[in-house]
């Protein structure tokens, strides 16, 4: 220590750092301890993020080293020892297709609910209906799966899939013999599961639209629906967009209900060519196969799929956060 002292002194002299800098004592007080303890504990967030990133990257190294880009763009999935080959493409596409169906069905429904709750419902109905919609979020995913497996799947099969495949079966995406355990059913259950997320955020956004906007629109003779469609929705569209992206994030990461309803195809059979055929998403693949994985390479393959899922969900969520804040900053929440 003493050996370095002249050097420090030199730095202090030449950079005009007050000598006090080297002698400053940290006073240990209750406040100091409390603040820094809380700061250290608050670092748990980044610790969790780093641990997750570290485990998923290091544990998937074997499979990525062995197959390279084929892991991301291949379709085969064969865990038999000596002939192993793993490709994640069908599951990435399966995730995109089911989430897409969920958004197509779930977003209009959620917007309808949000509009009904804020603009149309009688005051006495608002609270009970929003409780019910929020309860949808409280039901555990595995119970959605159980209900889907024994009840919902037959609704979809009998009232949607069979008529569609009978009359529109010549369209490729409706081809095949519907069985009820397929991409479409999984997408529908996801649609129900994202409703509470999208509806409650859209509700907040719509009720934040100032009343002067509505009054102005009414005063030029617009009907209630025109006010909602052309003024309220346009005013809140950046917030609604954020709600939709958060719903997408939820749909992408949802595991249990999907794994019970999607039919569990693997390999090239899982490529989504028709909505009415068994498929697989990344999350459901891991849930269904992880425990049966035997070799080191197979475990690494599942972890690798998890890594792709993690990156996808990170991109969606970070993108949503950046986009929504940016949009809000530029426009100040106002109409263009």
């Amino acid at each position, binding site marked *: 220590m003493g050996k370095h002292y002249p050097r420090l002194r030199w730095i202090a002299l030449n950079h005009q750092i007050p000598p006090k800098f080297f002698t400053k004592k940290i006073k240990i007080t209750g406040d100091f301890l409390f603040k820094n303890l*809380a700061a250290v504990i608050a670092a748990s967030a980044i610790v969790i993020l780093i641990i997750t990133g570290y485990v998923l990257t290091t544990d998937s190294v074997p499979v990525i080293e062995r197959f390279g880009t084929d892991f991301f763009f291949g379709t085969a999935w064969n865990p038999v020892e000596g002939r192993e080959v793993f490709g994640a493409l069908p599951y990435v596409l399966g995730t995109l297709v089911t989430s897409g169906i969920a958004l197509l069905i779930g977003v209009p429904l959620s917007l309808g609910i949000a509009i009904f709750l804020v603009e149309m419902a009688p005051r006495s109905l608002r609270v009970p209906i929003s409780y019910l919609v929020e309860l949808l979020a409280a039901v555990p995913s595995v119970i959605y799966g159980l209900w889907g497996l024994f009840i919902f799947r037959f609704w979809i099969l009998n009232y949607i899939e069979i008529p569609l495949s009978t009359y529109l079966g010549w369209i490729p995406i409706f081809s095949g013999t519907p069985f009820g355990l397929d991409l479409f059913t999984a997408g529908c259950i996801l649609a129900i599961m994202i409703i509470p997320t999208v509806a409650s955020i859209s509700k907040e956004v719509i009720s934040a639209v100032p009343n002067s906007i509505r009054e102005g629109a009414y005063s030029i003779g617009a009907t209630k629906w025109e006010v909602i469609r052309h003024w309220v929705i346009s005013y809140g569209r950046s917030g609604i967009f954020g709600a939709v992206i958060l719903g997408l994030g939820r749909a992408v990461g949802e595991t249990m209900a999907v794994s019970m309803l999607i039919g569990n195809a693997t390999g090239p059979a899982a490529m989504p060519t028709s909505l009415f055929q068994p498929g697989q998403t990344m999350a459901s693949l891991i849930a269904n196969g992880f425990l049966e994985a035997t070799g080191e390479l197979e475990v690494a393959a599942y972890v690798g799929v998890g890594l792709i899922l993690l990156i996808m969900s990170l991109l969606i969520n970070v993108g949503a956060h950046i986009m929504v804040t940016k949009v809000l900053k530029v426009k100040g929440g106002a109409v263009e």
Partner: protein
Amino acid sequence: MISNYAFRKFKNHFFFILCAVCVVLAVVPLLSILWEVIVRGAPQLSINFLISTNANGGIGPAIQGTLILIGLTSLIGIPIGILSGIYLAEFGNNHYAATMRSINDILTEFPSIVVGITAYGVIVIALIGSYSAIAGAIALSFILIPIVARTTEESLKLVPNSVREASLALGAHKWRTTLSVVLPSAKSGLITGTLLAVARISGETAPLIMTILGNRYFFQGLDQPMAALPLEIWRDSLQPYASAQAQGWGAALILILIVLSLNIAVRLASRGRFKK
């Protein structure tokens, strides 16, 4: 002109009805779920079903496992989450806190199965070397911590600054102010947020698959595999036997009772407080 007006009026009514239909379409699944779970699950209920092992036709280990998981996770996750929240709310006016805040936001949207893989890699493989109860609890607390941190922050921010200033003016230190004045003022918000977070993790299934694995017997130690209700429901529902499926519905009834009673209790308790 008249016909145009009639058309606009028609459109107005049409979309009014359409929005009402949306509400019905969302509420029907919820009511159907509750109805089926009660109708199919209630006949299973008996003292034997609640306390004996699977071999004797009960789901005792699963109920015990879920309660242990909830307890352990709360023990790990709630103190960490609340302290993080305190930091974010009381000392959070800097870049470090802003970063932690957005990371917490991202973590709450993490796919839960990825959390399961993390706990598998760190605890099941590296630290303990077997599927274990503690691995499940740690995986669940990874989900719990960010939620509790954010809700704590939100409810602490609702406490008016004048309360803090009054305490500081009396000569209390910042830590004393936070612990004895700010936290009690935000008590009901804290309890609400924490209970909702606990309700959410008690239904999580995906991270449990590769951490606690499941067990046919009662609790055998923190480093041993353990049963849990969500896993029980999942495994039972995929069995081809009607008796196993019926057991799954019974387990679903218990789980939904735990989760919904937490939710409804919270809503009744906080009624009026968050009314807008």
